[in-house]
């Protein structure tokens, strides 16, 4: 309970305001003049003053006088006539609250209690507007933070998996022992086996044999694919163009067009063959005679395969166990070499290579020629 001085000219106002303050649990002492109010304040340790403005009383000057005597006491002014400018003027001279007419217990209670716990305005030059964060905002922020954390973690995990997969080298044992070449048709890997005179279509996922085609009329040593045909070359140098049907029906034969071939590749316009004995690359025009347009020196040791990766030619050197890159403009120059450490032990000799669009595949024959052949999927290369 606080002692509050009520300063009003009219007794009716003092009585009304005193009753209201009494309802709130305060002790009100009415005064009609300033001197009475000051005396009351000195005797009863007043906590606040309530002044009435109007009806002959000027609250502005009264406020000044009271503040001069009691600078720390809050002063609440009750207006008899509503006037916002007057209210602000009263507050400027020191009134902490101004109550508008008609006076209601609710307004008076709010103003007096506010006045009793008066503090100054908090001032800052920070440009941010006052924060108004609801609990939902905080919950969403936490959820967003957690989601972002999980997202980053899962992205990292995916990237780690991708890197692990990219650097992984896979090896499979094959049900053949004498591989001679390897090719990729866009879906399957095609293994050429000279001993069984057969072509094996293998799944790139698990190397399961999907199709087997026997070509008993020839001894195939290499193969290559175009959009509508399969090209093969046999041990006697005969190049054959096959229809890509179930039986790989031969369409055209070019007898002895590519002698001693170790590899065959198609760059979209020309057919390329690799002569292992003469150590030359030949560029053929796909005409009636498969004419040789140009011959380029091959700078490897033991030719074993040839492939086109969509941009450049690659040849496989079984002796140096590496893949060599050749530009189409100057194929005699080796512009890059990719070593094949998977063959470093010497137990297998690489005999064919293919490119599936992202990785190299090679096939190797056991050194003694008796064990099963090995298919290797190499790690991703960045070119």
């Amino acid at each position, binding site marked *: 309970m606080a002692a509050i001085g009520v300063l009003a000219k009219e007794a009716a106002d003092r009585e009304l305001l005193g009753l209201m303050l009494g309802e709130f649990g305060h002790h009100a002492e009415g005064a009609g003049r300033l001197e009475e109010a000051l005396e009351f304040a000195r005797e009863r340790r007043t906590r606040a003053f309530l002044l009435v403005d109007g009806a002959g009383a000027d609250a502005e000057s009264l406020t000044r006088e009271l503040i001069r005597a009691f600078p720390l006491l809050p002063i609440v002014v009750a207006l008899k006539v509503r006037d916002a400018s007057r*209210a602000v003027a009263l507050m400027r001279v020191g009134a902490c609250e101004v109550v508008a007419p008609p006076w209601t217990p609710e307004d008076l209670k*709010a103003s007096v209690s506010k006045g009793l716990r*008066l503090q100054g305005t908090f*001032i800052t*030059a*920070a*440009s941010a*507007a006052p924060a108004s964060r609801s609990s939902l905002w905080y919950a969403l922020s936490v959820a967003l933070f957690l989601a972002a954390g999980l997202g980053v973690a899962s992205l990292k995990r995916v990237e780690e998996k991708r890197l692990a997969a990219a650097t992984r080298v896979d090896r499979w044992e094959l049900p053949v022992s004498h591989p001679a070449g390897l090719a990729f048709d866009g879906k399957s890997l095609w293994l050429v086996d000279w001993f069984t005179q057969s072509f094996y279509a293998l799944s790139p996922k698990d190397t399961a044999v999907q199709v087997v085609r026997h070509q008993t009329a020839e001894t195939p040593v290499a193969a290559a694919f175009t959009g509508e045909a399969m090209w093969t070359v046999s041990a006697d140098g005969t190049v054959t163009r096959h229809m890509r049907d179930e039986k790989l029906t031969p369409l055209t034969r070019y007898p002895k067009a590519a002698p001693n071939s170790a590899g065959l590749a198609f760059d979209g316009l020309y057919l390329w063959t690799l002569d292992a004995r003469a150590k030359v690359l030949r560029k053929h025009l796909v005409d009636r005679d498969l004419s040789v347009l140009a011959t380029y020196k091959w700078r490897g040791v033991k030719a074993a395969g040839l492939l086109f990766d969509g941009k450049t030619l690659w040849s496989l050197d079984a002796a140096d166990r590496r893949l060599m890159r050749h530009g189409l403009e100057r194929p005699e120059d080796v512009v890059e070499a990719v070593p094949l450490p998977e063959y470093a032990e010497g137990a297998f000799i690489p005999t064919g290579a293919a490119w599936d669009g992202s990785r190299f595949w090679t096939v190797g024959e056991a050194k003694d020629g008796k064990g099963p052949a090995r298919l290797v999927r190499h790690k991703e290369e960045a070119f």
Partner: protein
Amino acid sequence: MRAPSLVPALLSFPGSAARQDSWGRLLKITAGGGELSTAARLAKGERVAIQFDLGGERLLMPARVHLAYDDDGQCVAELRWSDMVARRRLAVVLVDVLSKS
């Protein structure tokens, strides 16, 4: 920093609101907005012009009520100053007042 007393403010409303002028106290003043305690009932989104004196300058700050709630019978409103020119002027005054404190 905290001022020795609460800054009085005169509230005026757009003509379309058909409301009488009112008054209140600024509990907080920043360059972006303020917090006002008033007996007038304010609603979120309402437009109101706040006139107050600070650092010897009389400022008229058009504002929008960002949030309003009842606090012990009085309405406390969080305001966002909506006029960029007035905001800049207020920022200059605030820096001046704070540099002298």
